[in-house]
């Protein structure tokens, strides 16, 4: 029983490392603005729909911890913003966007980036970090907008593939 639990934990940690590496791959290999896609939230939204479980908040915690290891911002900004944004996203999923559909995927992806970047910008502003303070407002909005756009597109494509090739999101079966 404990070995089985250990394997589950190792599987989750290994999966999170893989998602973090894929996120880096998009950052390094794709040109601007395609490299602004947030693979982590793309994965979290789809995983939330797939598992229908609040455990995704802790998966988000782990994922953002890995990203925190390479971030220029003070330790904790990315971790706090990412984890709390995922928690709020889960509440939205459970209480507002309660169905599994393309509309829900688009809405959740947009909400995820909005909540994450709002918390990220607010916490950085509180600490008056130069990465935010010296950045013009419209330039910041532009970067976030690209991130939202490509994350939504990526999530929709992945959801479409999952919908097409699996039965998990098939409405006929769920009914």
């Amino acid at each position, binding site marked *: 029983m404990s070995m089985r639990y250990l394997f589950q934990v190792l599987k989750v940690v290994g999966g999170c*490392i893989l998602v*973090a*590496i894929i996120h*880096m*791959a998009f*950052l*390094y*290999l794709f040109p601007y603005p395609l490299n*602004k896609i947030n693979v982590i939230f793309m994965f979290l939204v789809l995983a939330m729909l797939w598992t229908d479980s*609040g455990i995704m*908040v802790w998966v988000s*915690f782990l994922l953002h*911890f*890995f*990203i925190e*290891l*390479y*971030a*220029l*911002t003070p*330790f*904790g900004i990315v*971790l*706090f913003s990412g*984890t*709390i944004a995922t*928690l709020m996203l889960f*509440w939205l999923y459970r209480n507002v966007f309660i169905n599994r559909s393309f509309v829900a995927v688009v809405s959740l992806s947009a909400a995820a980036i909005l909540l994450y970047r709002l918390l990220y910008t607010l916490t950085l502003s509180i600490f008056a970090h*130069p*990465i*935010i303070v*010296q*950045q013009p407002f419209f*330039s*910041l909005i532009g*970067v*976030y907008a690209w*991130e939202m756009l490509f994350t939504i597109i990526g999530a929709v494509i992945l959801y479409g593939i999952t919908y097409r090739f699996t039965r998990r999101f098939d409405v006929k079966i769920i009914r």
Partner: protein
Amino acid sequence: MISKRTVALGVSSVVVLMIITHFIGWLTPVEVFFRSLINPASGALYRTSVALSRTAAGSQGADCSEAVASCLVDKAELIRLRGENAELRAQLRFLSQTSYTSVGAEVIGRNIDPIGTTLIINRGMKAGISKNNPVIVGDGHLIGKIARADEDTSIVRLLNDNASRVAATMQNRDKSIGLVEGGYGLSIRMNFIPQNEVVNQGDAVITSGLEEGIPRGLVIGTVEVVEKTPQGPFQEAILTPAIDFDNLALVSVITH
């Protein structure tokens, strides 16, 4: 049924606890462990991105048959190795002529943050690197400063980053002193040059040595355009950097 407030408090507490353990230093072994797992992948991805950009620049219009594709891969690897060899020789030549203590490092990644122009290198505090150490390539060309130093990795803020500031001097008749600032990852400009001093296109800009930890004489770039306003006390110069920041593979950090 656990209330939302309790859940939010619980999650926030765990996050805060994690942050506290990081700043105490208890989390360091965990961070080092996970970086040791992710760094090789990050380095491989970064090298691939540099090789792709070099190959694309050198082989436009090439035929895409299988044999040629294989040759392109070998060519990319050869170009990468030649580049690294030349870079290491240049850095060795420069550092052997000075009394600086330095640490060589490999670039293993680029900025994770959405805003900011940074590089990730595979050396950190364990190798003697600390915040604000200058980072050079080639024959003493400054590319940036250490913005964050962890146990085994560091983050370099490049000169063209918005938050980058370096005290500099121009090699013109007046030996103008000013501040070199980055602009949104695209440009570098030297500000606060007195209006009455003569600045010409092509004048070289180097570090002034007036900033703690940054020695004098590290090359920053050359003047491309001079911008003056008649009423203002200062003029600005837009600089062309000496180095292409997109294809850096090996750097040296001056630690002393």
